[in-house]
């Protein structure tokens, strides 16, 4: 079997453009890999090999005719199933959208098509991106390729598992409170949440509109940069989309970080942090110091309120955004004699438990008599957190933290306790609340072989610096993606 699935996106695009391999050969290798792994992982919800081949042949045809196929020529990309794809089902892993076929492409999908990417399939997620383990998918949970009894994280768990196991070299996720960075960390890959406004949200099914951002998952910083460059940029259809241009991220790897100031926020290293994670992030700090970066401790005292603020703001926005699922224009409808009963029945049967929980919390926070004490207060605390962070970014350029408090947990371990599940996002929500960019990348392994992730947070629109630090760390530490063990019974016999 072709080993092209092991290659990076950058290498694949170069080979396809140089006619060393065809886009069809690239796709075929990933199709075979996916057929072998997907049942076990549950990473893809929709995957049509014939459609993938058709797209690949079109790229090959384009190349044959002498046209420029684009920077992602023939590169298969997994798409989180809350991103609209024209003519291809987009379910948000919810029963209520089980048969929804969007009549348009999201902005990021248009960009991928123009760049010559192959839209490989739709990846599994927590229903409406609400969750941290991908166990809230209405269809099936996703499993971690490094230990099938464990979660890949969430909510972009399908995208993370698919990239980590080589089903695709790249995938898109969405990040509202850590949904790209946390699964990237638990699957030992790179995941980035761009600055709010960097990537158009047009065609991303809305969860919490002031927090949602689409971003890349990849096996290297270079590949993540290539995908982010492809999707970033202004789009008039998203009023919060920024006109600031993204500085090209694919620059040489800096050999020294002299002059760079890295802040270590002490609140991220408290008692809930697993020892192995603490040690790995400590080693990352030393690596960066050896690159001549200066490191200083900083304090963000409001960090402990990040989760309470998030679990007011995000559900409030969700309760409003999800009001559109009413059984009238799209999605499922439960039959009833009159309209209000139809709304209640449709939503009661169409939404899963976590989605209902968040709609209730959000509606409560916004309801008359409670608004000031909950939603209003959360927004003020969010404002204070923003100010606190801005002050720290006057002292330092980048913040270094763990991405998650622990390595991947077991499936079922936290499903009965919503608060325990919410605390997975304790290190990631701040970047969403403040709109700043953040990257998680591999920084080691636990004694059990499970990936550990570190997080770098940058200044608003500071992706260039953030990616340079990530590149330098990746090169100096040699902490890169490791292939998961091959499933039993599929190994090639020894020669």
């Amino acid at each position, binding site marked *: 079997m072709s080993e092209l699935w092991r290659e990076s996106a950058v290498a694949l695009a170069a080979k396809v453009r140089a006619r060393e391999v065809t886009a069809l050969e690239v796709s075929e290798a990933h199709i075979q890999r996916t057929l072998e792994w997907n049942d076990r992982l549950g990473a893809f919800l929709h995957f049509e090999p014939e459609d993938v081949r058709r797209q690949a042949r079109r790229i090959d045809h384009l190349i044959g005719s002498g046209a420029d196929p684009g920077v992602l020529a023939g590169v298969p990309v997994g798409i989180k199933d809350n991103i609209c794809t024209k003519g291809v089902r987009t379910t948000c892993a919810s029963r209520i959208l089980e*048969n*929804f*076929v969007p*009549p*348009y492409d999201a902005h990021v999908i248009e960009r991928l098509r123009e760049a010559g990417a192959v839209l490989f399939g739709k990846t599994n997620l927590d229903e409406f991106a609400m969750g941290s383990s991908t166990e809230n998918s209405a269809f099936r949970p996703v499993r971690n390729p490094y230990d099938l009894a464990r979660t890949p994280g969430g909510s972009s768990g399908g995208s993370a598992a698919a990239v980590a196991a080589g089903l695709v070299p790249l995938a898109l996720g969405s990040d509202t409170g850590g949904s790209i960075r946390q699964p990237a960390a638990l699957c030992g890959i790179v995941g980035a949440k761009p600055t*709010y*406004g960097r990537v158009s949200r047009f065609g991303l099914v809305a969860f919490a509109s*002031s927090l949602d951002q689409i971003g890349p998952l990849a096996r290297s910083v270079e590949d993540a940069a290539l995908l982010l460059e492809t999707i970033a940029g202004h789009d*008039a259809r998203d009023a*919060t989309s920024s*006109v600031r241009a993204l500085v090209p991220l694919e620059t040489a790897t800096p050999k020294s970080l002299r002059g760079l100031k890295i802040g270590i926020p002490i609140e991220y290293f408290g008692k809930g942090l697993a020892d192995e994670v603490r040690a790995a992030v400590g080693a990352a700090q030393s690596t960066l110091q050896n690159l001549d970066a200066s490191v200083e401790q900083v304090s963000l005292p409001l960090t402990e*309120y990040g989760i*309470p*603020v998030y*679990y*007011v703001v995000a559900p409030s926005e969700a309760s409003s955004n999800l009001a559109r699922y009413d*059984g*009238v*224009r*799209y*999605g*499922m*409808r439960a*039959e*009833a*004699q*009159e309209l*209000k*009963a*139809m*709304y*209640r*029945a449709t*939503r*009661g049967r169409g*939404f899963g*438990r976590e989605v*209902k*929980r968040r*709609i*209730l*919390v959000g*509606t*409560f*926070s916004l*309801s008359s008599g409670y608004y000031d004490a909950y939603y209003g*207060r*959360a*927004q*003020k*605390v*969010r*404002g*204070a957190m*923003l*100010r606190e962070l801005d002050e720290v970014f006057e002292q330092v350029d980048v913040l270094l933290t763990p991405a998650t408090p622990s390595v991947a947990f077991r499936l079922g371990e936290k499903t009965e306790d*919503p*608060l325990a599940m919410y605390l997975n996002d304790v290190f990631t929500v701040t970047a969403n609340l403040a*709109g700043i960019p953040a990257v998680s990348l591999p920084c080691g392994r636990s004694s059990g072989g499970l990936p550990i992730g570190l997080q770098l947070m940058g200044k*608003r629109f500071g992706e260039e610096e953030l990616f340079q630090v990530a590149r330098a760390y990746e090169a100096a530490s040699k902490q890169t993606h490791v292939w998961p063990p091959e499933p039993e019974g599929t190994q090639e016999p020894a020669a």
Partner: protein
Amino acid sequence: MPIEPDEVRHVAELSRLEMTPEEADSLADDLQKIVSYIDRLQEVELGPDDEALTYFDADVHREDRTASGLERADALWNAPDADGEFFLVPKILAKDEE
């Protein structure tokens, strides 16, 4: 703050969510736990100047212009019930509201 079962039923009604009595009871427990947790926001000391801040680059304006939108057939494509021109819905007023 304790949340009464009536409060949960009221919020569920506002949210247009049908639920069985068992589901309502167990979601009431969850809601109670979550609200007790987010109640920690009350302890944050805020100054008189603290207000909700945003970070949006929202001063992006353009001239009004007309552009084509979704075609009617495309807009109706996913509807659970439609007649080719309109979305169809069940009767809007229940008997006791007529």
